[in-house]
């Protein structure tokens, strides 16, 4: 009923609003609005242009071979050397360990909120978890350096662990990611039709079985999307790793090691006053381009999965 009225309305509205506007004023306003929208197109264009135009001269000084196939990153001290893999390994180290901690915690939270919690518990728990998303990353960085490493990791692992280490940064990163993963996963789980759950209950399944064998598989594309988005955030996150993980490029996945990520290196250059045009300044853009492409890949993949679960159930 409502549907047909709206359909007719939509057709009518389309007819009415497609009338060419006679007033010049309206045309000008629409043109101004279009200019506003053009700003975001310009932004993408500017990001790509800036990164590429500074990366090209970088590769005139440093060969592709050195950048992609050697493993020593030492741009600030002589003899300089630009093998990106130490920085990628640093980023990978943080991604790996933050996911190890974030995934079980955030997915369990999502399953609990979607399948178990009474709505009153949910209305308290959910905003508290989402508050974690509003905390500035420099605060997490402080927490990692001054609390997690000295008061949690040192007592557990002994003094062998350096004050700057991947583990402290990863644990705090995982806390930061809880709302990212939990809220998207929970959306996907809540979108699973009730009939599926009731069918399973009708066959005698328990709540745990419904959650783990019906809802979770049905919401899988949403869960994957949330994880991909979380990975993109870890790869791009700067302050936590720059403060807590150290500034030693290190080709290792050992969580107790001190590592430097791509973002950590970029911030290090930003803190100093790299001379314009120097290879060091240009390396900032080469690393930035790598970072941009990696996060773009994860974001596009995540959006693809999000669209998939929306198409199926919503």
């Amino acid at each position, binding site marked *: 009923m409502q549907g047909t009225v709206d359909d007719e309305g939509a057709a009518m509205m389309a007819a009415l609003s497609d009338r060419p506007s006679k007033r010049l004023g309206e045309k000008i306003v629409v043109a101004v609005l279009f200019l506003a929208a053009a700003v975001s197109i310009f932004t993408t264009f500017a990001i790509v242009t800036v990164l590429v135009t500074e990366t090209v001269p970088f590769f005139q000084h440093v060969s592709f071979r050195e950048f992609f196939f050697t493993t020593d990153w030492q741009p600030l001290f002589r003899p300089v050397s630009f093998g990106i893999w130490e920085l990628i390994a640093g980023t990978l180290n943080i991604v790996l360990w933050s996911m190890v901690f974030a995934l079980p915690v955030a997915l*369990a939270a999502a399953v609990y909120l979607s399948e178990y919690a009474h709505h009153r518990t949910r209305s308290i728990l959910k905003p508290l978890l989402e508050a974690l998303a509003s905390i500035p990353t420099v605060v997490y960085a402080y927490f990692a350096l001054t609390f997690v490493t000295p008061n949690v990791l040192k007592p557990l692992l002994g003094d062998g662990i350096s004050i700057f280490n991947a583990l402290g940064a990863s644990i705090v990163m995982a806390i930061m990611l809880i709302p990212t993963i939990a809220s998207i996963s929970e959306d996907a789980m809540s979108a699973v039709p009730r009939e599926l759950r009731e069918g399973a209950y009708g066959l005698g399944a328990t709540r745990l079985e419904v959650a783990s064998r019906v809802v979770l598989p049905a919401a899988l594309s949403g869960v994957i999307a949330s994880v991909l988005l979380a990975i993109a955030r870890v790869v791009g996150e*700067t302050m936590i790793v720059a403060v807590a993980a150290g500034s030693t490029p290190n080709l290792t996945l050992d969580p107790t090691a001190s590592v430097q990520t791509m973002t950590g290196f970029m911030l290090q250059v930003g803190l100093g006053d790299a001379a314009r045009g120097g290879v060091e300044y240009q390396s900032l853009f080469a690393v930035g381009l790598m970072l941009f492409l990696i996060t773009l890949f994860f974001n596009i993949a995540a959006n693809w999965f999000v669209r998939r679960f929306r198409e199926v159930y919503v």
Partner: protein
Amino acid sequence: MANATMGAEIRLEATGQVARRQRASRWSRWILFGFAMIGVVALFLLTVITIMEGGSRLSWDLIQNYPSRFAERAGLRSSLIGSAWVMSITMGLVVPIAIGTAIWIEEFAPRNRLIDLIKLNLANLAGVPSIIYGVLGLAVFVRFMSLGPSIIAGALTLFLMILPMTVIASQEAIRQVPASVRQGSLALGATKLQTVWHHVLPGALPGMITGVILAVARAAGETAALIMIGAFTFISFDNSSIFDQFTTMPIQIYNWTTRPQQDFRANAAAGIIVLMAIVLTFNLAAAVLRERFRRN
């Protein structure tokens, strides 16, 4: 699944199978609840530790003093003023442009390939790491446009950073306005623009403001992008022009955090209390606004 069906028919309690499954399910509630509480405990710990470390340093002097080599004399004055300048300009830029973009996309844009591309572009821009926006700001505003590491360069950088999320929130707000409102207005002879100005915009405004507040809160806590454009500086004067060099609160907190002396760590904690008070006020305002909007 075969087990489950059989269980119902031949009453497997005898062998304990059903009882076991039900016990597992009962336990799972508490185990999952425990996992869900980890985030809450972390939030609690973070709050308590910051207050314990920084509470004693919280004073009028901390707000009023310029930064200093001596922890007990160092304060947030220049970074508070810098943050206020940058935030006001960022907000002044993002409000008209984000809302204009959203209105154009939702109400005026032709429904074709181009608009799909623009939407995809916005979604991807929203996921670009903040440090990349910093690199963009450094190359375009600081160097190319010769603005230097100034307030205006910082504000433009943060503006570009929060624009995508603000546009997406504004689009959602516009979509919440029922089609019947537009139809009624158009049927009475209003032009498209009159309809948007008098009916769509007022209806979408609370949702738009919520989105702007959340985005500005994000910008207020941003550190990396502003360090990239050169805002990691020692400022001991009150900013008075958009071309001044500046620093912001998160950068001051970063500075204090990375110093080895314990006294500066206490300053960092006190700075965090001030920053969090501001950010949480923003978030609370957005939440209250959203609730009130939903009720009406």
